[in-house]
């Protein structure tokens, strides 16, 4: 049997943080896809397009499924943490299981042009804005 050590302060901090989040404003707005789900993501802007980076150490490329529709991105997959047979575990901190997270971005995306790159346990999604969402220069007469 494996016992996991828990840090009481980590629990307290997490509660505080989720309360703060509930009171304050979340970047994703009043949508179902908030903070606190796995995997944690960082969202960047590259020009007018978006880039989502997530750390997924131990997830195999073939166990990862990405779907894009409208302004929504779904990151779905499974993380396996395996030990050799007949091994005695000294320390167990890594957590495996399934994950499914849906993120809604503030603009419609061009699903056909989305690219995903998975390297060294880091997933990078390049999400171009849909043509209708691109800014247009207006000529001044």
């Amino acid at each position: 049997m494996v016992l996991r050590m828990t840090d009481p302060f980590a629990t307290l901090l997490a509660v505080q943080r989720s309360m703060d989040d509930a009171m304050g404003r979340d970047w994703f707005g009043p949508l179902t896809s908030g903070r606190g789900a796995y995997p944690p993501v960082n969202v960047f802007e590259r020009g007018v397009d978006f880039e989502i980076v997530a750390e997924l150490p131990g997830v195999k490329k073939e166990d990862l499924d990405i779907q894009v529709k409208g302004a929504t991105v779904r990151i779905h997959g499974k993380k396996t943490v395996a030990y050799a047979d007949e091994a005695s575990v000294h320390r167990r901190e890594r957590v495996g299981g399934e994950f499914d997270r849906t993120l809604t971005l503030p603009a419609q995306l061009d699903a056909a042009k989305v690219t995903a790159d998975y390297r060294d346990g880091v997933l990078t999604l390049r999400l171009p804005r849909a043509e209708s969402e691109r800014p247009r220069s207006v000529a001044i007469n």
Partner: protein
Amino acid sequence: MPTQEVALQEKKELAPQQERTEAGKFYSPYTDIYETADAVVVAMEMPGVERSAIDIRLDKGVLTVTGNIDPKRYEELAPIYSEYNVGNFIRSFTLSTKIASEDISASVGDGVLTVRLPKAKEALARRIDIK
């Protein structure tokens, strides 16, 4: 097997013990350690660390693993929303078993570093037959 959801684990930032010459944050990688009949295996989660940026040392029974990330990756990007921070990884373990240090091997895949530390001959368990 019942499906279990992955719980979110906050990255553990290291409390500075001494001042470092390098800038940037340091995190303690989540680690599993298990022992088989002939080796101790250490598996560390170091996402974003390339193979060439990993340093493994065994000195006086202390195993130290360092993994540096490439900050250039984020240079052209403007962050608009963040849930985690990035930084280098470092962690040390004092090994209680005698290790055949010349036979240590390591492999890395999908952001997980696995270090195999074969036990030295004198540390191997011997099966005792009962007469």
